[in-house]
């Protein structure tokens, strides 16, 4: 086994965002990567972060896969990149369930993303312009293939664990299926093996909002020196509702009015919930690229693990050897318990080593990002059990 190499941080050219000091590595340099669409792609750049220390045996690495609008910053990013806090600070850090004193935690921005990994807002070397709508359509499996190349570059043969929620959970499932020999344990969270018609429908609403924005220019907005921020904001607003629950929305806002004592009989944001959503939409456009949103939601829509294996999820899992723990949340109506249970049932069909915990919460799909003590405690217990079997404790 080769010793782990830590690729140098590159300062990358291009848009202003790309001058920021993301830690990146060039992948698929020797030969381009084959995509599910049939196209080949590469070389490309992948931005990643790591927390903790890789042990001598290279056996304590955990890969965290992010969701649709997530990124590689599990913990707080450097101030020059963003003032936002990391998206999984409840889970990752010293003494946390993904304990960085024990584990080497890696997270990378997905292929097609906009936080340093090559995506549609980057420059196509063949044309000298942003890829825009000529960026190849990618799939969840393509994202995972790219992550496997990153692990190769880091000198990590086997992951102690791969985990992630929502779209991150889809990547976890692909990891279990595509690279069974490289996954010791896996924790798919609030996810599905098949993107449902309802979820495709929600994604389509978001895409149509972006494409209906005149500033979208058929995806070529970079050449026009503009961005479809209004469409992207509406897409985010619609999606954000699906991440919450009716109970959580009611508890947080009810029908409370925003800075006023009576309705204005107009279309200002009279209600706090309107003001909240507008704020969510506006701040999102500061950090996310509209074309990335189109490409990544498309990848989610195409995700259908049984279809990749003759229509049988059990067949898909035939070679799975990892210890697995599936999590769902009672009030999650985007990736409901029933869809997570389908994963568990198919894993039982191959007598896989699977656990399944449904966490009672009223916080909806977003619960996996929040401080849910039962969730954190159960996941930590699963990882400790897996670590004992891996000889890490």
């Amino acid at each position, binding site marked *: 086994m080769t010793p782990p190499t830590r690729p140098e941080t590159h300062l990358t050219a291009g848009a202003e965002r790309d001058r920021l000091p993301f830690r990146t590595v060039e992948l698929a340099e020797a030969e381009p990567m084959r995509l599910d669409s049939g196209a080949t792609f590469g070389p490309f750049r992948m931005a990643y972060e790591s927390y903790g220390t890789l042990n001598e045996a290279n056996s304590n690495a955990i890969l965290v896969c992010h969701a649709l609008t997530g990124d590689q910053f599990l913990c707080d990013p450097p101030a020059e990149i963003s003032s936002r806090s990391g998206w999984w600070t409840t889970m990752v850090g010293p003494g946390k369930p993904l304990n960085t004193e024990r584990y080497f935690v890696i997270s990378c921005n997905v292929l097609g993303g906009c936080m340093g990994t090559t995506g549609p807002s980057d420059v196509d070397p063949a044309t000298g312009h942003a890829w825009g709508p000529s960026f190849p359509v990618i799939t969840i499996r393509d994202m995972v293939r790219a992550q496997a190349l990153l692990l190769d570059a880091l000198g990590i043969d086997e992951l102690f664990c791969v985990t992630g929620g929502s779209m991150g959970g889809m990547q976890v499932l692909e990891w279990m299926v595509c690279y069974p020999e490289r996954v010791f344990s896996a924790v798919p969270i609030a996810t599905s093996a098949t993107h449902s018609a309802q979820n495709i429908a929600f994604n389509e609403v978001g895409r149509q909002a972006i494409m209906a924005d005149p500033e979208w220019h058929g995806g070529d907005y970079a050449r026009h020196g503009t961005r479809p921020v209004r469409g992207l904001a509406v897409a985010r607003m619609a999606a954000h509702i699906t991440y919450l629950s009716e109970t959580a929305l009611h508890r947080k806002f009810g029908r409370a009015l925003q800075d006023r004592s009576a309705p204005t009989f107009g279309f200002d944001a009279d209600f706090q919930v309107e003001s909240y959503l507008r704020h969510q939409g506006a701040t999102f456009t500061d950090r996310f690229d509209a074309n990335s949103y189109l490409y990544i939601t498309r990848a989610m829509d195409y995700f259908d693990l049984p279809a990749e294996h003759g229509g049988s999820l059990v067949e898909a899992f035939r070679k799975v050897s990892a*210890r697995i*723990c599936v999590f769902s949340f009672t009030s999650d109506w985007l990736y409901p318990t029933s869809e997570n249970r389908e994963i*568990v*049932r*198919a894993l*039982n*069909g*191959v*007598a896989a*080593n*699977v*656990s*399944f*915990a*449904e*966490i*009672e919460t009223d916080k909806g799909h977003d619960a996996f990002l929040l401080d849910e003590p*039962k969730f954190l*405690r*159960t996941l*930590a*217990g*699963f990882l*400790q*059990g*897996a670590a*004992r079997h891996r000889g890490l404790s």
Partner: protein
Amino acid sequence: MTPGTPVAGGATIRVDLQLIADMVAPGARVLDLGCGEGALLEYLVTEKDVDGRGVELSQAGVNACVSRGLSVIQGDVDFDLGDYPDNSFDYVILSQTLPAARHPRELLLELLRIGNCVIVSFPNMGYWRSRLYLLWYGCMPVTGALPSLWWETSNIHLCSIRDFLNLCGDLGIAIERALTVNNRGQVSRFRGVGRIANLMGEQGVFLLGRS
């Protein structure tokens, strides 16, 4: 709760669970149905090095098990066993859960499909104290093994050891071992498949196989 006995390695479990654990060969593949908070499963994994899985109805029980590092899913033994392939386990354990099953007959057949051996324990309605209780008070027996009143128990198919053996006979199930536990939670000297075991055993513990 019946008293526990200390065992080698320091772990302590209830006697009826200990009897079950003693029937399991080290390193086996084990499925514990109705595993509760995982006391037996944890014992089997740590002391007998089994590849252990559990199914538990209550989510609180499941979460407790997973927190302890055990592989357990939330599920109902009446509905959720169909996914498992034939012979997926060396032992399938049904501890104190049979009387709560909706279809005990079908369940027993299902257990012997997915497991090479099945270990079943249940409270014995043929136990002399239960018989006397019903005869004397005219009420459903409340004993150490059956502590709940009739309206609060989750048991819907109570049976005696004789009832159970008759069913096994009808289904062609082989009785490999037959033990009983007395009202002090100790292994009873009355064992086997005869009338005395049915009279003197407060609980029955059986190792079943395909005949």
